[in-house]
């Protein structure tokens, strides 16, 4: 083990510049990536990420350094480097080292992988991918199919000068299918990519054929579609990955990383009504086996279930250690980072709008002229302004309360603070979708989710 004596020595060395707090994060990550194109294995790779980061806090100021020389001397050198960055000597006498009485965090794993990807051969993974290929290939107008498989096992150690000692193993497994449908010069793409914080048993609940079939269904449904109209319209957004709207429009600006800089329109609005009363939104790290699961966050704190908005009222931010220091709001186990090359920041886990009382049908039937955005693509937000966008992968016109012709090429744009008030109906069919979320501490697995919702008015970017 990276033993307690060495960790204590490194933390002490690092604090010789006068830091209030020091934290060591060490990581050993093994990954597999595979790609099938037209059913043939095109890429097989993967490898070993191995490194350590040291974070010091001087008040709320952060010094971070990392290296992948994780030998005892490499770690001592790193500690000396960060200490000297603030004018410290980078060395301590024998009596000054160690002495930390670590308390081992005994967090019970929320989920233990049954078919661990490390114990499963690549040939079995390829067999699963071939099933996904089979689900898409030749369906309707589908001419081209790509299947990607990814697994990642990240082992981490977090030790800090407050005596925290936390270890965790995170397993992620994911399969994504891209299908291209073609008819003459017409061409459209469909994509579906579920994943989980589980081993390969995940594919028992979500059979690979289904993943392929869903990508193919979207590509075929959109192939002969006309272009979406442009302008402000009512929009019904589908469940599962539809939740990307809340993620972009509101999630990012409820992270203390944005709040602490006043780069959030919600910074001073705790306890106020910021959304329609039908909206309850939650960021949950405790869903067993989920893509956004956090048994222990990257600051050594167990994940939590955080109610962000309750019946329209702002209840909590997502808070990490620096966020707590700067804003005074209690940490929520939201300190996350992609790997040792990033200092942790407050980040989303599984973020979703909770079930409401309507049904998808009742939402759609109330719209005279609008859009049904059944499957969403990705999106992004500018934290300072709350202006966000996201792409619609599969959309339909709604005419007189009925789903009508398919539409391609739509995006939705708006402003989080305003559009949250425009969510006027929430159905009861909550489900989660999986994505990679990029922000200051790197790219992380996060779930988005929601039931079907109705937004009274949003700007649609089409060209008809």
């Amino acid at each position: 083990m990276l033993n307690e004596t060495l960790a204590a020595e490194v933390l002490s060395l690092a604090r010789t510049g006068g830091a209030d707090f020091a934290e060591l994060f060490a990581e050993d990550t093994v990954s597999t990536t595979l790609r099938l194109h037209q059913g043939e294995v095109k890429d097989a790779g993967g490898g070993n990420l191995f490194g350590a980061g040291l974070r010091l806090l001087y008040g709320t100021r952060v010094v971070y350094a990392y290296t992948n020389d994780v030998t005892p001397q490499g770690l001592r050198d790193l500690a000396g480097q960060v200490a000297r960055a603030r004018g410290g000597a980078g060395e301590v006498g024998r009596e000054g080292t160690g002495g930390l009485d670590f308390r081992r965090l005994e967090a019970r794993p929320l989920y233990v992988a049954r078919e661990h990807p490390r114990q499963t051969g690549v040939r079995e993974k390829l067999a699963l991918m071939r099933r996904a290929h089979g689900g898409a290939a030749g369906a309707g107008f589908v001419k081209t199919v790509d299947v990607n498989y990814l697994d990642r096992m990240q082992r981490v150690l977090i030790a800090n000068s407050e005596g925290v000692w936390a270890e965790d193993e995170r397993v992620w497994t994911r399969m994504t299918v891209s299908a291209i449908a073609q008819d003459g010069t017409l061409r459209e793409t469909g994509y579906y990519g579920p994943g989980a914080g589980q081993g390969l048993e995940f594919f028992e609940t979500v059979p690979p054929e289904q993943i392929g079939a869903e990508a193919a269904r979207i590509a075929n449904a959109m192939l002969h579609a006309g272009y979406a109209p442009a302008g402000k319209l009512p929009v019904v957004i589908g469940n599962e990955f539809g939740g990307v709207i809340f993620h972009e429009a509101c999630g990012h600006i409820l992270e203390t990383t944005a709040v602490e800089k006043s780069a959030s329109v919600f910074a001073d609005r705790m306890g106020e009504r910021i959304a329609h009363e039908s909206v309850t939104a939650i960021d949950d790290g405790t869903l067993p086996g989920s893509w956004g699961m956090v048994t222990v966050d990257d600051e050594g704190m167990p994940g939590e279930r955080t109610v962000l908005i309750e019946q329209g009222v702002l209840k909590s931010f997502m808070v990490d250690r620096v966020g707590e220091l700067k804003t005074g709001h209690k940490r929520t186990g939201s300190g996350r980072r992609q790997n040792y090359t990033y200092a942790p920041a407050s980040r989303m886990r599984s973020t979703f709008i909770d079930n409401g009382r309507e049904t998808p049908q009742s939402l759609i039937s109330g719209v005279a002229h609008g859009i049904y955005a059944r499957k969403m693509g990705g999106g992004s937000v500018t934290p300072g302004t709350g202006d966000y966008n996201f792409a619609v992968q599969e959309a339909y016109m709604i005419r007189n309360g009925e789903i009508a012709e398919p539409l391609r090429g739509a995006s939705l744009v708006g402003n989080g603070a305003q559009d949250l008030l425009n969510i006027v109906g929430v159905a009861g069919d909550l489900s989660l979708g999986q994505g990679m979320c990029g922000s200051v501490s790197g790219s992380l697995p996060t779930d988005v989710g929601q039931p079907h919702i109705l937004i009274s008015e949003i700007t649609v970017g089409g060209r008809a």
Partner: protein
Amino acid sequence: MTAQSEPQLSLAEAQAYLLERARTQGVTLEVYGERGTATSVKAYGGEVSEFKLSTRQGVGLRALVRGAWGYSFTENLSRPALDRALDSAVENAELVQPEPAAALHDWPPPPALDLYGEGLSGVTVEQKVQVALNLDRVAREADPRVVSVPYGGYQDGDLQRLVGNSAGLGREERQLYAMQYAYPLVSEAGQNKMQGDWQFTREFTELDPTRTALSAVEKAAALLGAKPAPSGTFPAVITGECLAQLLMLFSPMFSGKMVEEGKSPLAGRLGEQVASPLVTLVDDPTLPRGLNSRAFDAEGCPSVPLTLIAAGTLTAFLHNAATAARAGTGSTGHADRHGIQGTVGVGPSNLFMQAGQTDGPALAPGLTGLRLTDVSGGHAGANPITGDFSLEAQGFWLEEGEVAHPLEVFTVAGNILDLLAGIEAAGSEVHWTDYGAGAPDVRVNALAVGGA
């Protein structure tokens, strides 16, 4: 977690060790290595909010077994870890479908490029911190409407890359960069806007924090007083930075790999007129100040400029060794790899549209329509397989060629090939983005806008 107990080799030692092991095992191997040291200083509210130092190195392996490539990578450079990586690359190759024309080459020498400048050894930590603090202070003091500078700072990096293979190739280069950026948040009458500016250089002394900060504030403040955009189709001026962003988003259309996999709308159209005669599109990895400059590509193939579109005619695709051989041509030196973890694909370096003849107001005399300055959401809203885009946009409304007012968040939509075909005039200066793409300002006849 285990600390590494075995000694770590240097990058060059690791490469030599692996190639020697490969030779004795009869494995055809390529070793791609990177070592980088970097400093980053973020400032907020007059103080350094984050200071970051890093050292990172590792090797990416590519083994060729019976015509098939297998990959692996490791950041652990001990001999046992390197052995495991070699075994893993070979095992992976055995699972992969053989590719016609897969081979390693001992390429001719690369061009001599100075991407290193004077170096950073004479620059103190205090000087770097001062750049970040100056950016923050100048931006905050420049205009009372500046609330704060949420994103601002200084970064530098010193990167060593090497490529060696069992065909005898051995290439190494070092490059350095220093950059600064500031994104002020401005507020007036309940409207919040954020916009910024940046500077990239290979010489620390060339950085000018005052200029970048003032320009950032000017760009952000210009967006205040925004009014809703109308919905409809309008003529537009697209700024060079914005067009460059679109070109980068759609650069996979020019990839020989995307072409051979049936994913490019330009497949089969070499020699055809695919854009306005005003469009000449070049990819040049040899620009001394280019953000993505390099002397050789991820396979060690020497860098040369390449014209993709000449006066509207599609003249070339980007290729690595294998895609080129299968397309019956030679590598253009565009083998691309996202660090040691990536596989070898095809990608652009510094991609830019050449300047035209028209300048300033002459670009849009009397035009009533849009001045499009920025698009975002491209990772999902731009589809290089179809060429279609629908994106969040920023810009201004023009009346009779003059800026009338900025526009509230709106969208633009269309198809990149239609857009390039519809270019009616091109400005006389190329503007670069902070990811290494460039273009002049252009005027197009029609752009679909989604607004109020």
